[in-house]
């Protein structure tokens, strides 16, 4: 199977869907003539023309609004946010409109649009450009939210999102964009492979056991899935067998997979890149404790980022989000360690 970088997997998925379906188009800042801020859409303008690769002013409300309206009219817009943080000026369009139109009009319309862009922390971009905003979307009924961790899912979930008839937010892991396949393969073989053949796409709403284990279940998504795998490698060196689950989709959320795992391991660590308070991991932890109450041998451990706006200085920034060592500590805590 071919090995890809995350960013290339995104490009591949977008291109394939544009080839397949004329109603798919991409719109955003610098997606065309500039070849994409991070070059995901390099070559697209030349290939598909300005009707399908649409450069815009710095007008996120307009971009999302255009996406919503054109989706209602039967197109399949992919709205690129240069960074997902920049979706916030358009948050009203997303939450009050994209998410609600189907319901509030009794099902008369559908809004098959994609909102996507790089997200997350760790690139010294400081407070306004280093956020993991998943909750702001995953709390909203009517949206779907996917969080690809690997090149395979960057590909498979993007394709699935484009074909989905609902508004889907793809929260892309900026830190993964340009990771070399070899580096990923070193963490776990297969991570950079895209399943081939017969038009594979991922199923939105399915979590996945990425590594089997029996002592403790590590649950992550996006970059934190990779950190969980690294942590599992470290734990293995100490004779602890960790199962790693990649959530892949936050809305809908597949809890059956983690709950089944915990039936086996009786211990869980939930990892999230940024703010713990009212964060994604809270829901996972709560559901495990509520629904797996009698399976748990120890309190669920949450490993989350510092509850502060992201600092710029590398020295502070690296303290502000979880590393594999933090996950190892938490895992050991579930096993009675300190």
């Amino acid at each position, binding site marked *: 199977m071919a090995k890809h970088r995350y960013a290339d997997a995104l490009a591949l998925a977008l291109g394939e869907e544009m080839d397949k379906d004329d109603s798919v188009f991409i719109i955003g800042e610098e997606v065309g003539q500039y070849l994409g801020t991070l070059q995901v859409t390099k070559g697209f303008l030349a290939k598909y023309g300005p009707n399908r690769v649409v450069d815009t002013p710095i007008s996120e409300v307009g971009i999302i609004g255009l996406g919503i309206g054109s989706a209602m009219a039967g197109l399949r817009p992919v709205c690129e946010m240069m960074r997902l943080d920049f979706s916030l000026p358009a948050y*009203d369009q997303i939450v009050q409109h994209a998410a609600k139109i189907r319901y509030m009009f009794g099902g*008369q319309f559908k809004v098959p649009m994609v909102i996507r862009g790089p997200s997350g922390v760790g690139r010294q971009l400081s407070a306004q450009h280093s956020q993991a905003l998943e909750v702001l979307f995953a709390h909203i009924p009517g949206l779907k939210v996917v969080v690809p961790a690997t090149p395979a899912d960057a590909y498979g979930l993007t394709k699935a999102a484009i074909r989905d008839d609902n508004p889907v937010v793809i929260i892309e892991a900026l830190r993964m964009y340009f990771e070399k396949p070899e580096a990923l393969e070193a963490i776990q073989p297969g991570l950079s492979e895209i399943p081939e053949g017969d038009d594979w796409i991922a199923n939105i709403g399915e979590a996945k056991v990425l590594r089997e284990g029996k002592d403790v279940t590590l649950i992550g998504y996006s970059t934190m899935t990779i950190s969980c795998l690294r942590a599992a490698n470290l734990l293995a060196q100490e004779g602890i067998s960790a199962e790693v689950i990649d959530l892949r989709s936050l809305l809908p959320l597949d809890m059956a997979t983690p709950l089944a795992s915990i039936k086996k391991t009786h211990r869980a660590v939930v990892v999230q890149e940024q703010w713990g308070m009212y964060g994604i991991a809270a829901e996972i932890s709560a559901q495990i404790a509520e629904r797996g109450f009698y399976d748990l041998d120890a309190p669920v451990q949450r490993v989350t980022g510092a509850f502060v706006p992201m600092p710029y200085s590398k020295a502070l920034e690296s303290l502000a989000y979880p590393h594999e060592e933090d996950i190892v500590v938490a895992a050991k805590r579930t096993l009675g360690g300190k």
Partner: protein
Amino acid sequence: MARAATAAPPASHATAKNGSGKEADLDIKKLDAKKYLRFYEQMVHIREFEELCDHAFRQGTHGIGGYLHLYSGEEAIAVGIIGAMDVENGDAFIGHYRDHAYALAAGSEPGEVMAEICGKATGCSKGKGGSMHICDAKLGFYGGYGIVGGNVPIALGLAWAIKYRGENRVCACFFGDGSMNQGGFHETLNMAQLYKVPALFVLENNGYAMGTSIERSHANPNLASRVESYAMEYHVINGQNIFEVHEQVAAIVESMRTNPRPVFLEMKTYRYHGHGAADTQVTQSTYRSREEVEDWKTHRDPIRLAEQALMEAEILTEEERERIHTEAVEAAKAALKFSDDSPDPSPDELLTDVYV
């Protein structure tokens, strides 16, 4: 010779400058009599529908709750503009929360509109939307929206889809003067003009956003300048005169089909009721006088003006007039009865329609 009746605006409504200055001097007799009779009839039906809504709301027994925004006084806009569109063949339109009339003007079933307002299972949005969220997909009505200015960027997308497919369709977007102070409005206008999409932006300038007059909320009450700053074509039209509205807009819409571009219409108009049902006589008195309201009702009512012109032109007889009014009252009552006879949405409906 019968002329389109227009009256001087009451001085108290500073923004009602009575159209663009190039007052239409229309010879009614030369116009399509049947069409205008239908428009007249539609306006009367809408008026009676709205007045019955008001009544039903106050009765409190029909299921109407929340907000209720009525269109009385502004009928010529919805009727004249939607009447210029081909909603059965791909023209699209979208509105704000004062939206019953858009559906009725396009030909939606009054019963389904009323049932929606009353939250019934038979409502056009299955009772899930209510008064602010009427829609009718089969007639190209992409719905009424409750967030001021929220529908305007969506209209950009509807019009974009037309352009994308190379169709010779148009999309109309109705909104109030208050919308112009939302940032998204500006992003939309700029992009619409940049991409030359066939969007017809219809400003219903009724002089007030809730209790705030244009003068107290727009640094430059000359609204044209905001639109012209995007190099967009702009027309001011007397929204109280169905003949002027329709003739001008029909010509514009046709020209948009062959020369796709966004066009902005400022319709001078007035609302008779409070902003919504919560805006009572008492609260209205903080921002406008009864005299002002009466002045508009007396001198610039779209139904009266149409009636007068059609009768002068001998297109409408007194008998017809009475029949139409009677039927309109009956139709509104029938709509309410349809709603009253309809069941509430079933509990299962709570969880449907969130996702496709």
